[in-house]
Protein backbone atom coordinates (compact mmCIF):
# COMPACT_ATOMS: atom_id res chain seq x y z
CA UNK A 1 0.00 0.00 0.00
CA UNK A 2 2.52 2.33 1.11
CA UNK A 3 4.72 1.27 -1.76
CA UNK A 4 2.02 0.89 -4.43
CA UNK A 5 -0.28 3.62 -3.37
CA UNK A 6 2.00 6.51 -3.49
CA UNK A 7 3.81 5.02 -6.43
CA UNK A 8 0.61 4.55 -8.41
CA UNK A 9 -0.73 7.75 -7.08
CA UNK A 10 2.56 9.35 -7.92
CA UNK A 11 2.46 8.02 -11.47
CA UNK A 12 -1.13 9.07 -11.80
CA UNK A 13 -0.15 12.38 -10.34
CA UNK A 14 2.62 12.96 -12.88
CA UNK A 15 0.42 11.72 -15.68
CA UNK A 16 -2.27 14.11 -14.62
CA UNK A 17 0.14 16.92 -14.25
CA UNK A 18 1.62 16.02 -17.62
CA UNK A 19 -1.79 16.02 -19.24
CA UNK A 20 -2.72 19.15 -17.44
CA UNK A 21 0.49 20.73 -18.55
CA UNK A 22 -0.24 19.62 -22.07
CA UNK A 23 -3.79 20.84 -21.85
CA UNK A 24 -2.63 24.03 -20.30
CA UNK A 25 0.01 24.47 -22.97
CA UNK A 26 -2.37 23.60 -25.76
CA UNK A 27 -5.04 25.81 -24.32
CA UNK A 28 -2.54 28.60 -23.91
CA UNK A 29 -1.20 28.18 -27.42
CA UNK A 30 -4.69 28.11 -28.85
CA UNK A 31 -5.62 31.20 -26.95
CA UNK A 32 -2.42 32.86 -28.03
CA UNK A 33 -2.96 31.84 -31.65
CA UNK A 34 -6.48 33.19 -31.56
CA UNK A 35 -5.21 36.43 -30.12
CA UNK A 36 -2.52 36.61 -32.77
CA UNK A 37 -5.08 35.86 -35.46
CA UNK A 38 -7.29 38.59 -34.11
CA UNK A 39 -4.43 41.06 -33.91
CA UNK A 40 -3.32 40.02 -37.40
CA UNK A 41 -6.82 40.69 -38.59
CA UNK A 42 -6.53 44.08 -37.00
CA UNK A 43 -3.02 44.44 -38.29
CA UNK A 44 -1.28 44.95 -34.99
CA UNK A 45 1.27 42.13 -35.16
CA UNK A 46 4.43 42.56 -37.18
CA UNK A 47 4.27 40.06 -40.02
CA UNK A 48 7.22 37.80 -40.66
CA UNK A 49 10.03 39.86 -42.08
CA UNK A 50 8.23 43.19 -41.93
CA UNK A 51 10.29 45.50 -39.73
CA UNK A 52 8.38 47.26 -36.95
CA UNK A 53 9.84 50.56 -38.17
CA UNK A 54 8.17 50.02 -41.53
CA UNK A 55 4.82 49.30 -39.89
CA UNK A 56 5.19 52.45 -37.87
CA UNK A 57 5.95 54.41 -41.03
CA UNK A 58 2.96 52.83 -42.75
CA UNK A 59 0.59 53.78 -39.94
CA UNK A 60 1.93 57.30 -39.84
CA UNK A 61 1.96 58.03 -43.56
CA UNK A 62 -0.74 55.83 -45.09
CA UNK A 63 -3.64 58.27 -44.60
CA UNK A 64 -1.66 61.08 -46.24
CA UNK A 65 -0.49 58.91 -49.14
CA UNK A 66 -4.11 57.86 -49.81
CA UNK A 67 -5.26 61.48 -49.52
CA UNK A 68 -2.74 62.66 -52.14
CA UNK A 69 -3.62 59.83 -54.51
CA UNK A 70 -7.32 60.43 -53.93
CA UNK A 71 -6.93 64.12 -54.75
CA UNK A 72 -5.55 63.05 -58.12
CA UNK A 73 -7.65 60.03 -59.09
CA UNK A 74 -10.85 61.02 -57.20
CA UNK A 75 -11.64 57.41 -56.43
CA UNK A 76 -10.96 55.92 -52.99
CA UNK A 77 -10.47 52.33 -54.14
CA UNK A 78 -7.99 53.39 -56.80
CA UNK A 79 -6.24 55.71 -54.36
CA UNK A 80 -5.82 52.82 -51.94
CA UNK A 81 -4.36 50.67 -54.76
CA UNK A 82 -1.90 53.45 -55.52
CA UNK A 83 -0.94 53.68 -51.85
CA UNK A 84 -0.30 49.92 -51.74
CA UNK A 85 2.00 50.15 -54.76
CA UNK A 86 3.81 53.14 -53.30
CA UNK A 87 4.50 51.39 -50.01
CA UNK A 88 5.60 48.18 -51.76
CA UNK A 89 8.05 50.22 -53.88
CA UNK A 90 9.41 51.87 -50.79
CA UNK A 91 9.59 48.58 -48.88
CA UNK A 92 11.65 46.99 -51.64
CA UNK A 93 14.21 49.73 -51.96
CA UNK A 94 14.46 51.87 -48.88
CA UNK A 95 14.97 51.40 -45.15
CA UNK A 96 11.93 52.36 -43.10
CA UNK A 97 13.90 54.78 -40.96
CA UNK A 98 15.30 56.70 -43.95
CA UNK A 99 15.14 60.41 -43.27
CA UNK A 100 13.57 61.00 -46.67
CA UNK A 101 10.78 58.43 -46.19
CA UNK A 102 7.88 60.86 -45.84
CA UNK A 103 8.77 63.16 -48.78
CA UNK A 104 9.56 60.12 -50.93
CA UNK A 105 6.17 58.61 -50.21
CA UNK A 106 4.35 61.87 -50.95
CA UNK A 107 6.15 62.33 -54.28
CA UNK A 108 5.59 58.69 -55.24
CA UNK A 109 1.89 58.98 -54.33
CA UNK A 110 1.49 61.98 -56.65
CA UNK A 111 3.48 60.49 -59.55
CA UNK A 112 1.91 57.04 -59.35
CA UNK A 113 -1.59 58.51 -59.09
CA UNK A 114 -0.89 60.75 -62.10
CA UNK A 115 0.22 57.66 -64.06
CA UNK A 116 -3.06 55.95 -63.17
CA UNK A 117 -4.96 59.06 -64.18
CA UNK A 118 -3.23 59.27 -67.57
CA UNK A 119 -3.81 55.63 -68.31
CA UNK A 120 -7.47 56.11 -67.39
CA UNK A 121 -7.68 59.12 -69.71
CA UNK A 122 -6.18 57.09 -72.51
CA UNK A 123 -8.97 54.56 -72.15
CA UNK A 124 -11.46 57.26 -72.98
CA UNK A 125 -13.89 59.66 -71.41
CA UNK A 126 -16.66 57.18 -70.73
CA UNK A 127 -14.33 54.95 -68.71
CA UNK A 128 -13.06 57.95 -66.81
CA UNK A 129 -16.55 59.13 -65.84
CA UNK A 130 -17.57 55.58 -64.97
CA UNK A 131 -14.53 55.20 -62.73
CA UNK A 132 -15.49 58.28 -60.79
CA UNK A 133 -19.19 57.58 -60.50
CA UNK A 134 -18.79 55.10 -57.65
CA UNK A 135 -16.90 57.72 -55.69
CA UNK A 136 -19.27 60.59 -56.35
CA UNK A 137 -21.64 60.07 -53.47
CA UNK A 138 -24.93 61.82 -53.99
CA UNK A 139 -28.46 60.80 -53.09
CA UNK A 140 -29.68 61.58 -56.57
CA UNK A 141 -28.20 59.44 -59.40
CA UNK A 142 -28.38 62.35 -61.82
CA UNK A 143 -26.46 64.53 -59.42
CA UNK A 144 -23.89 61.76 -58.89
CA UNK A 145 -23.43 61.51 -62.64
CA UNK A 146 -22.94 65.24 -62.90
CA UNK A 147 -20.40 65.29 -60.05
CA UNK A 148 -18.56 62.40 -61.70
CA UNK A 149 -18.50 64.20 -65.02
CA UNK A 150 -17.17 67.45 -63.50
CA UNK A 151 -14.50 65.60 -61.55
CA UNK A 152 -13.56 63.65 -64.64
CA UNK A 153 -13.11 66.84 -66.68
CA UNK A 154 -10.94 68.39 -63.98
CA UNK A 155 -8.82 65.20 -63.84
CA UNK A 156 -8.43 65.23 -67.61
CA UNK A 157 -6.94 68.71 -67.27
CA UNK A 158 -4.61 67.51 -64.53
CA UNK A 159 -3.52 64.59 -66.72
CA UNK A 160 -2.61 66.98 -69.55
CA UNK A 161 -0.41 69.23 -67.39
CA UNK A 162 3.35 68.66 -67.29
CA UNK A 163 4.30 66.11 -64.63
CA UNK A 164 5.87 68.57 -62.23
CA UNK A 165 3.03 71.08 -62.39
CA UNK A 166 0.45 68.37 -61.81
CA UNK A 167 2.45 66.93 -58.90
CA UNK A 168 2.84 70.40 -57.38
CA UNK A 169 -0.92 70.98 -57.48
CA UNK A 170 -1.68 67.51 -56.11
CA UNK A 171 0.67 67.97 -53.17
CA UNK A 172 -0.27 71.55 -52.42
CA UNK A 173 -4.01 70.90 -52.48
CA UNK A 174 -3.52 67.82 -50.33
CA UNK A 175 -2.34 70.21 -47.63
CA UNK A 176 1.46 69.91 -47.86
CA UNK A 177 3.50 72.96 -46.86
CA UNK A 178 5.97 74.63 -49.24
CA UNK A 179 8.76 73.01 -47.23
CA UNK A 180 7.22 69.56 -47.59
CA UNK A 181 6.62 70.04 -51.32
CA UNK A 182 10.21 71.21 -51.83
CA UNK A 183 11.51 68.12 -50.04
CA UNK A 184 9.21 65.78 -51.96
CA UNK A 185 9.93 67.15 -55.42
CA UNK A 186 13.59 68.03 -54.91
CA UNK A 187 13.02 71.73 -55.44
CA UNK A 188 14.15 74.82 -53.62
CA UNK A 189 11.63 76.03 -51.12
CA UNK A 190 12.08 79.60 -52.35
CA UNK A 191 10.94 78.62 -55.85
CA UNK A 192 7.78 76.74 -54.80
CA UNK A 193 5.60 79.87 -54.76
CA UNK A 194 6.54 80.82 -58.32
CA UNK A 195 6.29 77.29 -59.66
CA UNK A 196 2.94 76.81 -57.97
CA UNK A 197 1.56 80.02 -59.46
CA UNK A 198 2.72 78.92 -62.91
CA UNK A 199 1.12 75.51 -62.40
CA UNK A 200 -2.13 77.15 -61.32
CA UNK A 201 -2.09 79.46 -64.34
CA UNK A 202 -1.46 76.51 -66.65
CA UNK A 203 -4.30 74.62 -64.98
CA UNK A 204 -6.76 77.51 -65.38
CA UNK A 205 -5.72 77.97 -69.00
CA UNK A 206 -6.35 74.29 -69.71
CA UNK A 207 -9.73 74.42 -67.95
CA UNK A 208 -10.98 77.32 -70.05
CA UNK A 209 -9.57 75.92 -73.29
Amino acid sequence: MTRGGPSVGGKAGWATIGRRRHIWRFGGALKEEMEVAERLRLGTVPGPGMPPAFEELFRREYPRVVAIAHRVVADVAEAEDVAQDVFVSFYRKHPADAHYAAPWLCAAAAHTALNVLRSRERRGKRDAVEALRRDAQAPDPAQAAETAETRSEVRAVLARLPERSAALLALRYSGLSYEEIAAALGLRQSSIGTLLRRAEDAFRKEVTR
Partner: protein
Amino acid sequence: MSDIEDMLSVPDPKVDTDRALARLRARVKAERITPVTRMAAPPRRAAVSGWLKGLSAAATVALVATLLTVSGLAETILTIFEPKQIVAVPITSSDLSGASSFDAYGALTWTEQPKPYDVPDVRTAARESGMTVLVPGNLPAGVGAPRYGVMPKTTATFTFSAEKARQAAAAQKRTPPPMPANMDGSKLFITGGPAVVAFYDDGTTPTGASGASPFTGMPKLIVAQGKPPVVQSDGVTVDQLQSYLLQQPGISPQLAAQIRAIKDPSSTLPVPIPVDMATSKKVTVQGVEGICVGDSTGLGSAVIWQKDGIVYGVAGTLTEQQVLAVANSLH
Protein backbone atom coordinates in the same frame (compact mmCIF):
# COMPACT_ATOMS: atom_id res chain seq x y z
CA MET B 1 -11.23 78.37 -50.92
CA SER B 2 -9.49 79.07 -54.22
CA ASP B 3 -11.06 78.11 -57.53
CA ILE B 4 -8.52 75.33 -58.08
CA GLU B 5 -8.92 73.98 -54.58
CA ASP B 6 -12.64 73.93 -55.24
CA MET B 7 -12.21 72.11 -58.55
CA LEU B 8 -9.82 69.54 -57.11
CA SER B 9 -11.87 68.96 -53.98
CA VAL B 10 -12.88 65.44 -53.11
CA PRO B 11 -14.56 64.13 -49.98
CA ASP B 12 -12.09 63.05 -47.30
CA PRO B 13 -11.37 59.38 -47.88
CA LYS B 14 -12.19 57.15 -44.92
CA VAL B 15 -9.25 54.82 -44.62
CA ASP B 16 -8.80 51.73 -42.49
CA THR B 17 -5.07 51.71 -41.89
CA ASP B 18 -5.12 48.36 -40.07
CA ARG B 19 -6.89 46.66 -42.94
CA ALA B 20 -4.59 48.29 -45.45
CA LEU B 21 -1.55 47.12 -43.50
CA ALA B 22 -2.93 43.58 -43.38
CA ARG B 23 -3.44 43.76 -47.16
CA LEU B 24 0.10 44.94 -47.69
CA ARG B 25 1.42 42.21 -45.44
CA ALA B 26 -0.48 39.59 -47.41
CA ARG B 27 0.93 40.95 -50.66
CA VAL B 28 4.47 41.07 -49.31
CA LYS B 29 4.11 37.45 -48.25
CA ALA B 30 2.44 36.23 -51.44
CA GLU B 31 4.91 37.97 -53.74
CA ARG B 32 7.83 37.19 -51.42
CA ILE B 33 8.90 40.78 -51.35
CA THR B 34 11.88 41.32 -49.13
CA PRO B 35 12.68 44.61 -47.46
CA VAL B 36 15.93 46.34 -48.15
CA THR B 37 18.50 45.28 -45.56
CA ARG B 38 21.06 48.01 -45.99
CA MET B 39 20.94 51.74 -46.49
CA ALA B 40 19.55 52.26 -49.95
CA ALA B 41 20.54 55.02 -52.29
CA PRO B 42 19.10 58.41 -51.45
CA PRO B 43 15.84 59.25 -53.20
CA ARG B 44 17.37 61.29 -55.98
CA ARG B 45 19.46 58.36 -57.06
CA ALA B 46 16.63 55.94 -56.50
CA ALA B 47 14.74 57.85 -59.14
CA VAL B 48 17.31 56.83 -61.70
CA SER B 49 16.58 53.63 -63.56
CA GLY B 50 18.39 50.46 -62.60
CA TRP B 51 20.21 50.61 -65.90
CA LEU B 52 21.77 53.94 -65.03
CA LYS B 53 22.48 52.83 -61.49
CA GLY B 54 24.42 49.88 -62.83
CA LEU B 55 26.25 52.23 -65.11
CA SER B 56 27.27 54.52 -62.28
CA ALA B 57 28.43 51.61 -60.12
CA ALA B 58 30.45 50.37 -63.05
CA ALA B 59 31.84 53.85 -63.62
CA THR B 60 33.12 53.93 -60.06
CA VAL B 61 34.86 50.60 -60.47
CA ALA B 62 36.25 51.59 -63.84
CA LEU B 63 37.50 54.85 -62.40
CA VAL B 64 39.23 53.06 -59.54
CA ALA B 65 40.64 50.53 -61.97
CA THR B 66 41.85 53.32 -64.21
CA LEU B 67 43.75 54.80 -61.33
CA LEU B 68 45.68 51.57 -61.15
CA THR B 69 47.25 52.07 -64.48
CA VAL B 70 48.28 55.67 -64.04
CA SER B 71 52.04 55.86 -64.03
CA GLY B 72 54.14 58.21 -62.00
CA LEU B 73 54.70 58.85 -58.36
CA ALA B 74 53.34 61.80 -56.53
CA GLU B 75 55.38 63.27 -53.72
CA THR B 76 52.91 66.03 -53.16
CA ILE B 77 49.39 66.62 -54.43
CA LEU B 78 49.39 65.77 -58.07
CA THR B 79 46.69 65.49 -60.66
CA ILE B 80 46.60 61.84 -61.59
CA PHE B 81 43.39 61.80 -63.58
CA GLU B 82 42.04 64.51 -65.83
CA PRO B 83 40.18 63.11 -68.81
CA LYS B 84 40.54 64.69 -72.23
CA GLN B 85 38.94 61.87 -74.16
CA ILE B 86 36.54 59.05 -73.49
CA VAL B 87 36.60 55.36 -74.24
CA ALA B 88 34.02 52.61 -73.96
CA VAL B 89 34.88 49.77 -71.63
CA PRO B 90 32.58 46.80 -72.14
CA ILE B 91 31.75 45.07 -68.90
CA THR B 92 29.54 42.17 -67.96
CA SER B 93 27.81 41.63 -64.67
CA SER B 94 30.31 38.85 -63.91
CA ASP B 95 33.15 41.36 -64.28
CA LEU B 96 31.81 43.08 -61.22
CA SER B 97 30.42 40.17 -59.28
CA GLY B 98 31.11 40.79 -55.65
CA ALA B 99 33.22 43.84 -56.39
CA SER B 100 33.19 46.14 -53.45
CA SER B 101 32.06 49.68 -53.89
CA PHE B 102 34.53 52.47 -53.42
CA ASP B 103 33.59 52.96 -49.77
CA ALA B 104 34.82 49.48 -48.86
CA TYR B 105 38.41 50.75 -49.04
CA GLY B 106 38.06 53.88 -47.00
CA ALA B 107 35.94 56.90 -46.28
CA LEU B 108 34.57 59.41 -48.73
CA THR B 109 34.06 62.85 -47.24
CA TRP B 110 32.24 65.47 -49.24
CA THR B 111 33.78 68.88 -48.87
CA GLU B 112 31.15 70.25 -51.22
CA GLN B 113 28.08 68.04 -51.34
CA PRO B 114 26.52 67.17 -54.68
CA LYS B 115 23.29 69.11 -54.32
CA PRO B 116 21.49 69.39 -57.62
CA TYR B 117 18.72 71.97 -57.84
CA ASP B 118 16.25 73.15 -60.40
CA VAL B 119 16.61 76.45 -62.19
CA PRO B 120 13.85 78.16 -64.18
CA ASP B 121 15.66 78.60 -67.51
CA VAL B 122 18.78 78.08 -69.56
CA ARG B 123 20.16 81.54 -68.80
CA THR B 124 20.08 80.88 -65.06
CA ALA B 125 21.64 77.47 -65.68
CA ALA B 126 24.50 79.12 -67.59
CA ARG B 127 25.00 81.80 -64.97
CA GLU B 128 25.00 79.42 -62.01
CA SER B 129 27.23 76.81 -63.64
CA GLY B 130 29.62 79.29 -65.23
CA MET B 131 29.44 77.35 -68.51
CA THR B 132 28.08 78.10 -71.93
CA VAL B 133 25.03 75.86 -72.02
CA LEU B 134 24.38 74.32 -75.42
CA VAL B 135 20.77 73.83 -76.51
CA PRO B 136 19.41 71.56 -79.24
CA GLY B 137 18.68 73.25 -82.56
CA ASN B 138 15.99 70.74 -83.37
CA LEU B 139 14.05 68.24 -81.34
CA PRO B 140 12.21 65.09 -82.35
CA ALA B 141 8.44 65.40 -82.57
CA GLY B 142 6.60 64.97 -79.31
CA VAL B 143 9.39 66.30 -77.10
CA GLY B 144 8.17 69.09 -74.88
CA ALA B 145 9.83 72.03 -73.16
CA PRO B 146 12.90 71.43 -70.99
CA ARG B 147 13.37 71.73 -67.25
CA TYR B 148 16.87 72.68 -66.19
CA GLY B 149 18.86 71.40 -63.26
CA VAL B 150 22.27 72.55 -62.07
CA MET B 151 24.77 70.44 -60.15
CA PRO B 152 27.30 72.79 -58.59
CA LYS B 153 30.98 71.91 -58.40
CA THR B 154 31.45 69.02 -56.02
CA THR B 155 34.59 68.05 -54.20
CA ALA B 156 35.27 65.01 -52.10
CA THR B 157 38.21 63.53 -50.29
CA PHE B 158 38.72 59.81 -50.22
CA THR B 159 40.84 58.50 -47.35
CA PHE B 160 42.07 54.93 -47.60
CA SER B 161 41.47 52.87 -44.48
CA ALA B 162 43.05 49.48 -43.92
CA GLU B 163 40.68 48.81 -41.05
CA LYS B 164 37.61 49.54 -43.17
CA ALA B 165 38.86 47.34 -46.00
CA ARG B 166 39.42 44.54 -43.51
CA GLN B 167 35.92 44.93 -42.05
CA ALA B 168 34.31 45.06 -45.50
CA ALA B 169 36.11 41.90 -46.57
CA ALA B 170 35.29 40.16 -43.30
CA ALA B 171 31.61 41.00 -43.78
CA GLN B 172 31.78 39.18 -47.11
CA LYS B 173 33.72 36.34 -45.46
CA ARG B 174 36.73 37.02 -47.64
CA THR B 175 40.34 37.53 -46.76
CA PRO B 176 41.45 40.94 -47.93
CA PRO B 177 44.82 41.56 -49.50
CA PRO B 178 47.02 43.52 -47.07
CA MET B 179 46.88 47.27 -47.61
CA PRO B 180 50.35 48.81 -47.86
CA ALA B 181 51.12 50.71 -44.68
CA ASN B 182 51.62 54.10 -46.33
CA MET B 183 48.38 53.78 -48.28
CA ASP B 184 46.42 53.59 -45.05
CA GLY B 185 45.34 57.16 -44.34
CA SER B 186 46.50 58.58 -47.67
CA LYS B 187 44.08 60.70 -49.65
CA LEU B 188 42.58 61.15 -53.08
CA PHE B 189 40.95 64.49 -53.91
CA ILE B 190 38.09 64.21 -56.34
CA THR B 191 36.50 67.18 -58.07
CA GLY B 192 33.40 66.90 -60.21
CA GLY B 193 31.15 69.37 -61.96
CA PRO B 194 29.65 71.83 -62.32
CA ALA B 195 27.10 70.25 -64.61
CA VAL B 196 23.85 71.29 -66.24
CA VAL B 197 21.10 68.85 -67.11
CA ALA B 198 18.03 69.57 -69.23
CA PHE B 199 15.10 67.16 -68.92
CA TYR B 200 12.61 67.08 -71.74
CA ASP B 201 9.30 65.37 -71.01
CA ASP B 202 6.63 64.53 -73.49
CA GLY B 203 3.89 64.76 -70.88
CA THR B 204 3.39 61.03 -70.78
CA THR B 205 5.32 58.27 -69.13
CA PRO B 206 6.29 55.01 -70.78
CA THR B 207 4.66 52.98 -68.04
CA GLY B 208 1.14 54.19 -67.72
CA ALA B 209 -0.41 51.10 -66.20
CA SER B 210 -1.74 51.15 -62.71
CA GLY B 211 0.71 49.71 -60.26
CA ALA B 212 3.80 50.68 -62.18
CA SER B 213 6.58 52.13 -60.13
CA PRO B 214 6.51 55.90 -60.42
CA PHE B 215 10.14 56.03 -61.40
CA THR B 216 10.46 53.38 -64.06
CA GLY B 217 10.09 55.91 -66.84
CA MET B 218 13.01 58.02 -67.88
CA PRO B 219 12.38 61.47 -69.30
CA LYS B 220 11.92 61.44 -73.06
CA LEU B 221 15.21 63.24 -73.55
CA ILE B 222 18.09 64.32 -71.32
CA VAL B 223 20.81 66.71 -72.45
CA ALA B 224 23.68 67.03 -70.00
CA GLN B 225 27.03 68.75 -69.95
CA GLY B 226 29.65 69.13 -67.29
CA LYS B 227 33.25 69.49 -66.36
CA PRO B 228 34.78 66.01 -66.20
CA PRO B 229 35.97 64.65 -62.86
CA VAL B 230 39.55 65.28 -61.81
CA VAL B 231 41.39 63.12 -59.29
CA GLN B 232 44.43 64.21 -57.34
CA SER B 233 46.55 62.19 -54.96
CA ASP B 234 48.60 63.22 -51.94
CA GLY B 235 51.13 60.49 -52.34
CA VAL B 236 49.79 57.02 -52.97
CA THR B 237 52.09 55.35 -55.42
CA VAL B 238 50.46 53.90 -58.43
CA ASP B 239 52.35 50.64 -58.09
CA GLN B 240 50.88 50.20 -54.65
CA LEU B 241 47.41 51.06 -55.83
CA GLN B 242 47.75 48.66 -58.69
CA SER B 243 49.01 45.70 -56.75
CA TYR B 244 46.50 46.37 -53.99
CA LEU B 245 43.34 46.94 -55.97
CA LEU B 246 44.03 44.27 -58.56
CA GLN B 247 44.07 41.71 -55.79
CA GLN B 248 40.57 42.69 -54.70
CA PRO B 249 38.01 40.00 -55.22
CA GLY B 250 35.30 40.79 -57.71
CA ILE B 251 37.17 42.59 -60.49
CA SER B 252 37.59 40.14 -63.33
CA PRO B 253 40.97 39.72 -65.05
CA GLN B 254 39.26 40.60 -68.35
CA LEU B 255 38.08 43.93 -67.01
CA ALA B 256 41.49 44.68 -65.49
CA ALA B 257 43.15 43.84 -68.82
CA GLN B 258 40.81 46.14 -70.71
CA ILE B 259 41.46 48.97 -68.33
CA ARG B 260 45.21 48.38 -68.59
CA ALA B 261 44.92 48.52 -72.37
CA ILE B 262 43.81 52.16 -72.24
CA LYS B 263 46.71 53.99 -73.84
CA ASP B 264 46.60 57.22 -71.92
CA PRO B 265 44.77 56.38 -68.73
CA SER B 266 45.44 59.62 -66.92
CA SER B 267 43.48 61.55 -69.53
CA THR B 268 40.90 59.01 -70.64
CA LEU B 269 37.47 58.73 -69.10
CA PRO B 270 36.32 55.13 -69.27
CA VAL B 271 32.61 54.80 -69.98
CA PRO B 272 31.49 51.38 -68.83
CA ILE B 273 29.08 49.68 -71.19
CA PRO B 274 27.10 46.81 -69.67
CA VAL B 275 27.36 44.46 -72.65
CA ASP B 276 24.50 42.27 -71.55
CA MET B 277 22.20 45.28 -71.59
CA ALA B 278 23.70 47.69 -74.07
CA THR B 279 25.80 47.99 -77.17
CA SER B 280 28.21 50.73 -78.06
CA LYS B 281 30.01 52.07 -81.08
CA LYS B 282 32.20 54.98 -82.02
CA VAL B 283 30.48 57.86 -83.71
CA THR B 284 31.47 61.32 -84.87
CA VAL B 285 29.53 63.95 -83.04
CA GLN B 286 30.09 67.70 -83.14
CA GLY B 287 33.24 66.96 -85.14
CA VAL B 288 34.88 64.79 -82.49
CA GLU B 289 34.83 61.11 -81.66
CA GLY B 290 32.14 60.02 -79.27
CA ILE B 291 30.44 56.87 -78.08
CA CYS B 292 26.93 55.94 -79.00
CA VAL B 293 25.22 53.56 -76.57
CA GLY B 294 22.02 51.73 -77.31
CA ASP B 295 20.26 49.50 -74.85
CA SER B 296 19.60 46.05 -76.19
CA THR B 297 15.83 46.48 -75.98
CA GLY B 298 16.01 49.30 -78.53
CA LEU B 299 14.03 51.55 -76.22
CA GLY B 300 16.72 54.03 -75.41
CA SER B 301 19.97 55.45 -76.75
CA ALA B 302 22.68 57.76 -75.57
CA VAL B 303 25.66 59.54 -77.05
CA ILE B 304 28.60 60.79 -75.01
CA TRP B 305 31.53 62.92 -76.15
CA GLN B 306 34.07 65.37 -74.85
CA LYS B 307 34.94 68.64 -76.47
CA ASP B 308 36.82 71.71 -75.25
CA GLY B 309 37.14 70.37 -71.71
CA ILE B 310 33.46 69.58 -71.30
CA VAL B 311 31.79 66.17 -71.33
CA TYR B 312 28.44 66.12 -73.10
CA GLY B 313 25.73 63.50 -73.03
CA VAL B 314 22.42 63.17 -74.83
CA ALA B 315 20.15 60.29 -73.83
CA GLY B 316 16.54 59.41 -74.18
CA THR B 317 13.85 56.95 -75.03
CA LEU B 318 14.56 57.67 -78.69
CA THR B 319 16.29 55.94 -81.56
CA GLU B 320 20.01 56.19 -82.10
CA GLN B 321 19.49 58.47 -85.12
CA GLN B 322 17.22 60.79 -83.16
CA VAL B 323 19.67 61.05 -80.27
CA LEU B 324 22.57 61.68 -82.66
CA ALA B 325 20.57 64.33 -84.50
CA VAL B 326 19.86 66.12 -81.21
CA ALA B 327 23.55 65.85 -80.23
CA ASN B 328 24.71 67.32 -83.54
CA SER B 329 22.17 70.13 -83.35
CA LEU B 330 23.51 71.41 -80.02
CA HIS B 331 24.74 74.95 -80.35
